[in-house]
């Protein structure tokens, strides 16, 4: 009888516990949905094809779009990816291949710390290293700041994925007389493809919304700019400049641009998870 009662009690506690988990999760999701809802309701009214394919117009004129910022964002993404991906993957390989060595462990910790450096600091560094010496704001200097931001995520994703690959796979290649470099390039990296890809896409998603590193580097521009050695606009910069302006119509454009930006970030994250599932290899 006693046992029966205690089991009843246990079931009740289990139910309360499960219920609390649901409630707490939903509670913390509420602000998130509110933010999305707010951006969508405020942003959607100006969204049109015109908004995406036209350049900004001066204050007072109606219409105008975000084409220059959209193009600028993609150029910055491509440029910083080109700078960050090769170095990030190489460093990740180094860290996983030497994971039992002291200095690699130090570097690995250092990379973790690096992830926490405020993005504005990276912007200032790019400003000091690149903008000041050439005395010119440029998309390239912005891309350098963003690529430094991407590095830790790519390095960590590569390192962690490679560490998951069993040694037996390497032995299989060695036993066929495959030299070390070919083993890494042709066997180990392809097996880690999904993890590296998703890490890279997540890092792209992360930098595409960054404003701070671009303030003193890419600077922003009202013109459509293709030259990477000149100041260039980007979505976060446009949002920043419009939002702090005193004009209500610009505020509305800032909301719409935010919606576009969030959609882009969402797409990169979606791609990351699709890619990870598609090419995932189980060992």
């Amino acid at each position, binding site marked *: 009888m006693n046992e029966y009662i205690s089991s009843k009690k246990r079931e009740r506690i289990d139910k309360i516990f499960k219920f609390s988990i649901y409630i707490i999760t939903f509670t913390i999701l509420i602000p998130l949905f509110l933010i999305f809802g707010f951006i969508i309701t405020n942003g959607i009214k100006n969204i049109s094809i015109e908004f995406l394919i036209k350049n900004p117009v001066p204050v007072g004129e109606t219409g105008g779009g975000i084409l220059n910022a959209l193009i600028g964002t993609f150029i910055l993404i491509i440029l910083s990816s080109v700078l960050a991906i090769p170095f990030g993957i190489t460093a990740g390989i180094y860290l996983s291949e030497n994971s*039992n060595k002291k200095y690699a462990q130090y570097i690995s910790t250092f990379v973790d710390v690096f992830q926490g450096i405020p993005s504005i600091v990276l912007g200032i560094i790019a400003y000091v290293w690149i903008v000041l010496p050439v005395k010119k704001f440029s998309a390239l200097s912005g891309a350098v700041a963003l690529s430094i931001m991407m590095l830790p995520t790519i390095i960590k994703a590569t390192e962690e994925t490679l560490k998951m690959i*069993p040694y*037996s*796979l390497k*032995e*299989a*290649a*060695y*036993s*066929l*007389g*495959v*030299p070390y470099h*070919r*083993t890494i390039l*042709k*066997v180990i990296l*392809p*097996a880690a*493809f999904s993890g590296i890809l998703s890490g890279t896409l997540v890092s792209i998603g992360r930098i595409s919304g960054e404003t701070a590193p671009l303030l003193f580097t890419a600077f922003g521009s009202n013109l459509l700019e293709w030259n990477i050695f000149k100041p260039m606009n980007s979505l976060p910069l446009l949002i920043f400049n419009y939002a702090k302006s005193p004009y209500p119509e610009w505020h509305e454009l800032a909301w719409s641009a935010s919606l576009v930006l969030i959609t882009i970030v969402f797409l990169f994250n979606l791609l990351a998870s699709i890619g990870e599932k598609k090419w995932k*290899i*189980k*060992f």
Partner: protein
Amino acid sequence: MEDQILTIRNLNAYFGDFHAVKNVNMTVYKNTITAIMGPSGCGKTTLIRCINRLHELTEGAYTTGEIYLKNNNILSMNPIIIRRQIGMVFQKPNPFPTMSIYDNVIAGYKINGIKMDKTEMDTIVENALKKAALWDEVKDKLKQKGAFLSGGQQQRLCIARAIAMKPEIILLDEPTSALDPKSTLKIEELLEELKKDITILIVTHNIAQAARISDYTAFMYLGELIEYDKSDKMFTNPSNPKTNEYLKGCFG
């Protein structure tokens, strides 16, 4: 007497301070199956990993002595060259997960960047899979990933991958210990067939398996080669009392 293909002289293998293989001397004969048996940790796996120079890849591991493949000392040759002449199959099947069955078989050429035309590759793949008794099961799905095969099929795929390189010797490290009895039998049968072309060294802790398939058997204990003889003699009338005890199941 058969031709000698592999001669091991005063071989010692170490992991740092640990002396794993102690002064082993043995001769392996061409086109035979030689089984190396012994209890866990006796150094049998380390011994064969010295033969294709995988042992030295472990940090702190090194070897002394000589191993002659015909007349060349393996331990002073380029390990890359050696490993293309001496294939290996591991305890756990390890096909390349990103590659198709076809690419797995031809992997030794492809990853090494050895160029050849399609028909030549097709022939190598077909022959290797036939020798590995896998052709009939996979000939219609050569483009599928090797990881979808069963454990036994994966292991035969690994054997096909090893023999596709046309090695002189293949080393098998407990190749059936992760497999069910039926797959085990299939692999044992194919090894009998394979020894016509290739010399086989197999590490096993399954005494019955050693007795079933091998022409020669080596018994190792605590890093030493206790006895090495024709299997017929070894399993009926071993000369060393330690071997006798092991065969009777007194330890191991």
